[in-house]
Structure formats: C-alpha cells, structure tokens
C-alpha cells in the first residue's frame, strides 16, 4: 500500500514540475532576449561590417520574430536539441554533458567533506555548549561564512601550491601528464577507479583537493550551525526529557531520539546549500581553471550566448526539481509522519 501511495506522490510531484519548467523556459527565453547587446555584432568579430553582421544574425536565426524564435527553440528542444553555444563552439548538450559532471563532482565532494566535519561538530557543540568544541564550531562557522570563496581559494593556492608546493599546479581537472579516463559517470575519480587506474585516480583527487576544501569551508558553516541549533532544540524537548527519565542510555537518547529528529532541518539546509554552492562554484572554477558549468554559464551570459544560457537554466531547473524531490523522499525516510499526511 505504502509503495503505491509513495510512487503516486512521486509521479504527482513530477507532473507538478512540468508547468514550472515550462514557465522557467519562457521567462529565461524572454530574459536572455531582454539583455542589452547584440550577439550578432559580437560574434561577427573584430572587423565585421554591416553586411557580415547581418549574415551572422541570419545564421543565428535572430532575424526572425520573437514568437517564431521561441517556437523554433521549443520544437528543437522537444527533439533534444539544445542548440550550439557559439561562445565555445560546441553544442550545448555536449557542454552540459561534460561540464555538469565536473561541477557536480566538485560540489558533491565538497558537501560530503563538509557533512563529515559539520554534523559531528554541530552535535558535539550542542551537547557541550560553551566548551572549546562549541567555540571551535563558532569560529569555523563565522570564518566559513565571512570568507569569500575566491579569497579562500587564492589563499589556499598561495600557501599550498605557490609557497609549499604540496598541491599540484591548479590547471584544471587533471595534470598535463594525464588524459581523462573513459567516460562512464563523467566523474574523473569514479571513472578512473572503474578503469582501474590508480595513478589517474590519485592525480584527479590531487587536483580536486584544494577546490574541494575551499568549497567545503564555505558549505560547512550553514550545516554546522543548523545541526547545532536543531540539536539544541531537540535536546531541550519533552520527548528527550521523557526518554532520559525512562532511563535510556545517553547514546540512545542522543542518536535515536534527538539526532534523528534534528536531521529534518539539516536535510532542508543541505538542499539549500547544494543550490548555492553550485552558484558559488563559479569563482572557485575560475581560480582553479575547473571546466565546470558555472564558468560556462557566466561566460555565456556575458556575451549573450542565448542557447548556452537557456541550456544552463533548463538543466539547473531540472536538477533542482529532482533535488527537491529527493529531499522530500528523504523526509519520508527520516520522519515516518511525513508520508502519512495524505
């Protein structure tokens, strides 16, 4: 029974996403066109004259009326064709397929690292308020929030690459000596393991280290704060008091009763953090020459590369619809009450 209800709910959620995504398509289409600047003049190049600009405009299909352009865009989209990103000369599909995994690999690794540090830290800080652990937590949280990622990135680069020489040259996902592994997931670390190439795995991990630490410092803050606050709240709640009074072991009270209940707001925060880390990625990608989706989108936006911007927004919209769905599903796993609402 519960499976049927659950899958119906998932389906329902997916259907609800359709108008949202269509709305995003329309808004994004209109917004890109509303940007000042003329992509035809830009892409026609340095010495272009009137005629050659006009020719480029025709090639780009920008000489048609807006509704016609939109119809063309949607019908291409229905066939899975996202168009060509002129600024990079590749199809948008190729760009996304290559860059999204690059960004996700970085983001997910950073989230994983920050979770591993932030959650125990938040729990410890909540259970031992005003001790050194709590102060450490407060320090890391303040530092993480107040240091901009490009600054942390540059500072880490300066110390660990420039001064100490521990980190490899920050020139992208792999050192010059290596070729990327055969694509399975698009994550170099995972693909190199699938290929069984340890040297390659180490190399890609080495390239990731500094950007991941940079991002993790940034994402650690909200997660640790939220864990600490939620834990404080649940620890002060009636059911924890009851559990304690019933003589349950401290460990059991902490993990089963307090922590599980504190997880809900943490998971919500995690969803939000994920979304803004994908945004914050841009700066880290620039500093570490990481060929990710953020730098691609910014460059595309700067030169009014319509197809690229639209493709990026669309993929982000899809990503977030599925992310929200995943988080909702996670709720039902953590808190049985959520699934019984209907």
């Amino acid at each position, binding site marked *: 029974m519960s499976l049927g209800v659950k899958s119906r709910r998932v389906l329902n959620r997916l259907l609800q996403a359709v108008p949202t995504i269509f709305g995003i398509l329309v808004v994004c289409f209109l917004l890109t066109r509303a940007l000042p600047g*003329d992509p035809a003049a830009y892409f026609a*190049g340095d*010495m272009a004259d009137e005629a050659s600009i006009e020719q480029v405009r025709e090639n780009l299909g920008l000489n048609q009326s807006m509704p016609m352009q939109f119809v063309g865009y949607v019908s291409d989209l229905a066939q899975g064709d996202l168009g060509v990103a002129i600024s990079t*000369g590749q199809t948008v599909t190729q*760009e996304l397929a290559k860059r999204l995994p690059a960004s996700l690999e970085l983001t997910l690794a950073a989230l994983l690292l920050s979770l591993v540090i932030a959650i125990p830290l938040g729990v410890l800080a909540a259970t031992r308020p005003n001790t050194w652990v709590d102060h450490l937590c407060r320090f890391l949280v303040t530092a993480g929030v107040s240091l901009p990622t490009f600054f942390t990135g540059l500072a880490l680069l300066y110390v660990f690459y420039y001064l100490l020489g521990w980190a490899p040259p920050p*020139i992208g996902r792999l050192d010059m000596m290596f070729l990327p592994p055969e694509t399975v997931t698009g994550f170099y670390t995972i693909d190199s393991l699938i290929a069984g*190439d340890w040297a390659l795995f180490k190399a890609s991990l080495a390239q990731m280290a500094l950007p991941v630490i940079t991002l993790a410092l940034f994402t650690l803050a909200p997660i640790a704060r939220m864990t600490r606050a939620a834990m404080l709240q649940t620890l002060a709640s009636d059911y924890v008091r009851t559990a304690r009074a019933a003589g349950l072991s401290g460990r059991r009270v902490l993990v089963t009763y307090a922590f599980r209940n504190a997880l809900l707001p943490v998971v919500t925060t995690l969803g939000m953090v994920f979304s803004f880390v994908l945004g914050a990625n841009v700066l880290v990608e620039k500093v570490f*020459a990481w060929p990710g989706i953020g*730098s691609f989108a910014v460059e595309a936006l700067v030169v009014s590369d319509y197809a690229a911007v639209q493709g990026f927004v669309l993929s982000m919209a899809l990503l977030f619809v599925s992310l929200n769905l995943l988080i909702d599903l996670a709720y039902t796993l953590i808190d049985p009450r959520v699934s019984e609402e209907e």
Partner: protein
Amino acid sequence: MNRRNFLKGATTLSVSASLLPLTQLLPRAAQAATDETAVVVFGGTINSLDIHRSGTNRASYQVAINCYDRLVSFGTKKMPDGSLSYDFNNVQPEMAESWEISENGTVMTFVIREGATFWNGKPVTAQDVKWSLDRAVSLGGFPTVQMRAGRLESPDQFKALDDRTFQITLPFPSKLALPDLATPIPIIINSEVAKANASPDDPWATEYLHRNPAGSGAFKVSRWNAGEQLVYERNDDWACGPQPGYQRVILREVPAQSTRRALIERGSVTASQNIPNKDAKELAEKDGVKVITTPIENCIYSLCTNLDFEPFKDKRVRQAIAWSIPYESIFEQAAYGQGMPMWGGSNEVTSIAWPQKSPYEENLEKARALLAQTDYKDGFEVPLSFNLSVADWAEPTALLIQQGLAKIGVTATIEKIPGANWRTIALVEKKLPLHLENFGGWLNTPDYYFFWAYIKGNLFNSYNYDDPEMTGLIEKTLDMEVTDPAYAPSVTRMIELAFEDIPRIPLWQPTLNVAFKEDVDGYEYWFHRQLDIRPLKPA
C-alpha cells in the same frame, strides 16, 4: 622528484603515442631531459579550429597560424631591445616557393612549393589554394572583410593554372594585396578532405573543419577538449619552414590571471600568453622567468570624442580635452610604464611613422583658454565610457581623465559597458560621446589605420569624424605603393589633420607581453598577437 623536474624530464614521442598507457599523455618514467613538451597557459578559450567559421574568436586564430600554411609569410627583424618581431616590409615564401607580379601590378602568379604535402600525405596543389581562398571570400563575416582589405573579393580572381601554379588577378594594383595573404585568414586547406566532408547545406565543410583541421602546417591538433585544452603535435614532414623546437605543445585555458601568474612563477608552465602590464613589470624582476614586451604595431589606446555630441562639434572643445589629460600619470598608473608615450610630440609632423606622438600634453592653461573661447566656457557634463573587458587599463585611465577634465570644469561620469555590448553600442551604433578605444590595424601602414579610424561609417571611427579632405587622402593612399612620391606628403597631411581635428586623442601605444620560463628561445612578436609556437625552442 618534484613536479618541475618531472615536467622538464618528460620527454616524449621518440616513443610513439600508441605505446603509452591509454590515460597518460607522457611516459612518466622518461627522464632524459630533452625538453620536448611545452605547456602554454592563456586566459581565453578556443572555440573553433576553423578561422573562417562565423563566431570564431580571436584566441582561436592561433590554430590557423600553427596548423595551416599560407602562400606567403613575413620575415623576422630584431627589435631595439634584442627581441624578435615579424617584419611587415619583408614578405617571405611559405607555401609559395616563389611568385611574380605582373608589370602593371594586377596579376600575381605563385609557384607552389615542390614536395609540400598535407598531413594525410596528399600533395598541396594550386586547386587546394583556390578552394581555400574561394572559401575565405565566400563564407562572409570577418574572413571576407579581411580578404577585402587586400582587394581579394571574388572567387573569379583566383585561378589554378596547373597543379603548382596559382594566379590572383586584382581589379587594380594594391600594396596591401601581398601582405594580406600573410595574415592568418588565407590558409590553405586540404580541399579533398574538406569536400569529402561537405554537404549540400554546408558546401564549405564548416562543421567538419570546425573540429578537424585539415592542413599542411607545422603542428597538428592531436587533442581538443573545448573549454580545457588543446594539444599540438609536431608535423615532422612540414615543408614550409625549419622544424619547430617542441614535439608537443599543450595549451591550457586558465581563466584567473592570478593563477596564471602563480603557474609561470612556480615554473609549472613554459609560457603565459598576453599578461597584463602590472605582471609584466613585476615578473621581469623575478628569477627564472623572462618577460618579452613588444609595442603593438599600428595600435594606439585613445580617448575618442564623438562629433555627434553637441559640445564636441566645436574643434576647440576637442582640443581643450586633449590639453587637459594627465598623460604622464596615466602612463605610469594605467600602463605601468609599459609601452610608448603618444603625447608631447613636436608641433610639426616631420615623419610618416605611425603611431607617432601627438603635439598635445597636459597643459591646463591652454585647455582653459581654448574652452573659454567656446560656448562651453562654463563647462558641461559628459559620460565617459569604457569597455569592461579591457578594464585593467581602461578603468584607471578613465578615472585619471575624469580628474583632468574636472580641472577645466568638465564633469565626466564614468560608464562601464560590458564587453558583449561594447561592439554594438560603441562601434556599430557609434553613440558614446566620450570613450576609450583600442583599435590596432593588422596591416602595418598608416593609411590602413586611417582607413578604419577616420572615414565616416567605418567600424573604428566610433566618433563619426567626417572630413572630405581626409577621406580623399585615405582613398588615394590606401592602394598606393609607399615608395610613390605622392605617398609621404599625403600621409603627412593626414596625420596633421588627425592632430588638428583631434577626434581621437592618442594616449599611448600598448605592448604585448608574454612571460616565458627562462630557458625558452625564439619567441617572435606578430601583429595578430597570438602565440606562434613554430619558432619556439628550448635553449
């Protein structure tokens, strides 16, 4: 073994690539220090391997330079500081081993180099040259415009007389025709390969050549990961010049300038292309790095006064602006002292060298006196615009100009315009009253610069300057041989007019700065400002 030694020791391709483990570009254990791989970092991105495609950006021109041959090229000259530069006045053979120009100057006959082959082994023929030049004049966009500068406009002008003889017919003689054939545009493409990959919709194989170069040049592209890197591999059968010093050159895109600087300073990379003046100045003092700085020919960073803007219609207002600029501090603070000052010259034009110093300098009394004679003696307000993608020099320059103008009662408000909009607003619509501009002409003659910058309607005349005498002089000199007795007096007059009317106020001639590891030799400056990797070699 640290990374630096590792890179040094990484020898290659005496072992063929197929012997290497799949995921490694270089054999890790190879230690013999033959230094055959160079790593170059740059801030742009390569967006196509075909220079003729519409939308191909400037950084991608280097593929045309390194992977293709043209009929002719330029020789090399030594600069006063000992560095090397191409020599505009010395056209040298590339794919053409010799050529003849008819008595009346309109028919050019080229003999294709014997034994020259494309990468796939097919001999280079005059038919290939014809197909390639036809393509350049037919595809439209920038290639067609650049070809037109050399009076090369229609496929009818190109004829393959036999396999090794190629003929160009000009509508009238022009001194720009031969040098225009040495620009990156008129590359020679393997027409057999291209035609095999063309379609009725795409007769010029733009889709195929976009990703797959088919040339005869010194380097092949062995790998292109768009947005990340391009790997050049030497073509050992190259017929058109001495063998390049590097077996392989890896070109990596590193967007952050500070990262590029760290990489070259640490010695992780061989070269960093086009570095800002500030870094050029500071890196030059470091050990292990050498910076080569060359003034960019036929290029001036200028302040332009738009004649559509009411106050600037009065010549005296424009002159007053030119007298109010703090040139010296701009040169120190915005250019970090790199480049050639373009102010404080003599009152009389005595040479036709271009660029040359204008007679203006910072003289507030003169500026105020001139302004007092006009309707604008109480000052006026004007927006001062610059292109955000060149903010590294334009922003400090604009601020200093703003201060200078304030001293003569002109209130300038600074407007920053995003790079993508710049072309449309500044160059196409030409509606910015006061703006900073950085045009440089590829073909190094004054008339060519003036053609783009001082004829009404032309792209880099972003200030709507229109003077019948100037237009007449430019049209007269554009195709004229520089040795013609009428040439020098006409150009002198053009320069006099430009300084008298001063719609474009010269600030300084910029430089192209490239940083190398100390042990790299052979770098040569080129007007296209891209890195020609062919002459580079490890010392």
